[in-house]
């Protein structure tokens, strides 16, 4: 009898505690300290809470955080959002009393969403470590984000098979140096496709899969090309209405991808990122549009550095012989403006340590495979990164990442859907143009209206 009473009391107490805890969670903490107050904060009293975007690097970040805590005694908590859920995870986390002190946005459009929560980093030490001002995300005079990883994409090719093609009699292009514009690329791809049995491949390009694990390569990364050339021509860096000057070029390269492919056009709708990756690793295709982040997967699959090279994405624009690979960032660190001054100071110290200390730079380069745009960066071992460096040394102009100015996810999805329909022969190219041009203006107005 007595023990049941006790149990009941305990349960009651517990329920009460939970209630109190939950109610405390609702309490409002909106008194935002002004941004330069962070300087006065005491880092040794603060702690860091990083909401990480990249699931592949989750373990490495946690390990690095542990090392930092061991060295300095400052608590660093790292949490990672599941693939594709960063925005919703961040939204929920920002409402907590214990909100992330360090989070990230993907560029100008992402910054517009979170600007109220971003601290001005203009006076921070870490900003001074940047090798190039281009990697700071600015709005007016204030710097709200700092790119911490630079990535490059292009057309990864299998050097060994491509060499086999160059050496064969049916090849009209004889060396990689000659392969420097769209016409040459098309010639090579068509000839590989025609002689695929002789070369032992299933197609020139890996499947341009439009499953959500792969469609970003085309609706976002490939779509960057016409945007890049339009911005360049008009001398702008973002726009509320795209004209679509280079959409015919976009069509050209997309046609090439889906025609000289390992599979039928109608199969592309369900092909995944892993499908393309496997085809490339197995040597079933010569070209694979992807980026430096893919290096780990390719080498794990058995490809050697000597098999790998990266070509710029040629879309048939005049003067593209001097075009380089697409290099940029969509990973910008932001410090939560609503965090306490101590936490802000601790967070700034932590990121500065990550990009300046030996432990930090080694972890970023070796464990995470990142190329970081900071002065003390350690050289990466990634072969694809070296391809980029070679291109830059050869005087090629890198293509900037303008897809961070795309108006919304809905816009990308709209273009992706239209591309899928077009590839399968169910829709015409006009739908892609409409989604690209009209959709841009509509989505831009929705997001900024």
């Amino acid at each position, binding site marked *: 009898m007595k023990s049941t009473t006790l149990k009941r009391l305990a349960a009651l107490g517990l329920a009460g505690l939970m*209630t109190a805890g939950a109610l405390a969670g609702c309490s409002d903490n909106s008194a935002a300290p002004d941004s330069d107050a962070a300087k006065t904060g005491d880092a040794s009293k603060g702690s860091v809470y990083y909401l990480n975007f990249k699931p592949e690097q989750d373990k490495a970040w946690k390990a690095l955080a542990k090392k930092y805590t061991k060295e300095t005694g400052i608590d660093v908590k790292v949490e990672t959002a599941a693939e594709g859920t960063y925005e919703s995870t961040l939204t929920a986390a920002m*409402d907590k009393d214990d909100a992330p002190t360090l989070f990230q946005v993907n560029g100008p459009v992402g910054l517009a969403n979170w600007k109220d929560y971003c601290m001005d980093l203009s006076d921070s030490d870490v900003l001074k470590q940047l090798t190039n001002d281009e990697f700071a995300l600015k709005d007016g005079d204030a710097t709200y984000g700092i790119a911490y990883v630079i990535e490059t994409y292009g057309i990864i090719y299998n050097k060994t098979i491509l060499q086999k093609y160059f050496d064969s009699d049916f090849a009209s292009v004889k060396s990689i140096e000659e392969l420097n514009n769209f016409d040459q690329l098309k010639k090579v791809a068509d000839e590989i496709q025609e002689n695929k049995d002789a070369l032992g491949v299933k197609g020139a390009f890996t499947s341009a899969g439009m499953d959500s694990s792969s469609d970003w390569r085309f609706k976002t990364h490939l779509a960057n090309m016409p945007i890049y050339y339009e911005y360049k021509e008009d001398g702008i860096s973002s726009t509320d209405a795209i004209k679509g000057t280079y959409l015919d070029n976009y069509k050209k390269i997309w046609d090439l991808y889906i025609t000289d492919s390992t599979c039928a056009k109608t199969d592309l709708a369900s092909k995944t990122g892993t499908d393309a990756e496997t085809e490339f690793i197995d040597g079933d295709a010569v070209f694979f549009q992807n980026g430096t982040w893919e290096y780990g997967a390719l080498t794990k699959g058995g490809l050697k550095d000597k098999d790998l090279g990266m070509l710029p994405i040629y879309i048939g624009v005049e003067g593209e012989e001097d075009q380089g690979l697409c290099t940029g960032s969509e990973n910008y660190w932001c410090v939560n403006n609503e965090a306490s001054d101590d936490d802000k100071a601790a967070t700034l110290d932590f990121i500065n340590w990550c990009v300046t200390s030996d432990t930090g730079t080694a972890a970023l380069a070796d464990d995470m495979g990142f190329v970081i745009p900071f002065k003390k960066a350690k050289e990466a071992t990634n072969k694809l990164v070296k391809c980029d460096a070679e291109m830059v040394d050869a005087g090629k102009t890198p293509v900037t990442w303008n897809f961070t100015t795309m108006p919304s996810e809905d816009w990308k999805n709209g273009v992706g*859907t239209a591309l899928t329909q077009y590839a399968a022969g169910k829709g015409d190219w006009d739908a892609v143009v409409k989604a690209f041009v009209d959709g841009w203006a509509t*989505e831009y107005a929705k*997001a900024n209206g």
Partner: protein
Amino acid sequence: MFKKRNRLFFLIFVLPTFAAFIIGFIYPFFSGIYLSFCKFRTVSNAQFIGIDNYIKAFQNEGFLQSFWFTCVFVVLSVVLINLIAFAVAYILTLGIRGSNVFRTVFFMPNLIGGIILGYIWQQIFNGILQKYSTNLALNETYGFWGLIILMCWQQAGYMMIIYIAGFQSVPHDLYEAARIDGASKSQILTKVTIPMMAPSITICTFLTLTNSFKLFDQNLALTNGLPGVVGAGGTTIYKTEMIALNIYKTFYANQNSRGIGQAEAVIFFVIVVVIALAQLYFTRKREVQQ
């Protein structure tokens, strides 16, 4: 004295559940309604803007499309799921061998999560459709029937269990009396069994109706709304997107869209409540006292 103490205990014991109900339901519900009138980024910095969100929600073509798609889906799936579940339950109460094994097997799909189920069926359908050079993502007819098949497969087993319980609760003397009076098998089914099972039918229609209306996971995993058609203004309208999925996507679309998504959710709530209550009212009327 004794009674007063009892009442005190009653209050104490009901408190935790009551508190949980307030925190877990009442508070979010009303703050949700409030937020639908706000522009907000996170729920703690909402800014009241009036009915603007509701106007935008009704102007959202994708929302209207998903509403009609959902309605058609609900009608068809409610009918099919209940017919299948009723038929299976009828057969499994005839006393054929292995009834228990069959019951377990038919119930099993319910134990699998919607996302996994969606992906498994996506593989199956695409595997078949590939032979005909097409795909779930290319044709909304396949997507629609795919969803119907998937939902029937998953829900029929659950409803079957409820119907089996209904069948077993019909008193045997009624059957006996009917047989003595010379009723045929089909007469027994329509004049005795079905009226006696009206409570089961009420609960099953209610469950299938609300489940189908609120369907999200399976929709997300199976078609994710695809295919899309580029409409006026270059906005893409997704042909197999149901309301819940549309609300979710609207909510996260851009910095201004959260309130619109919230307003859509409130509209959706009202619709589901009205339809579900109407259905309960009409099916309850048919129930008979035993």
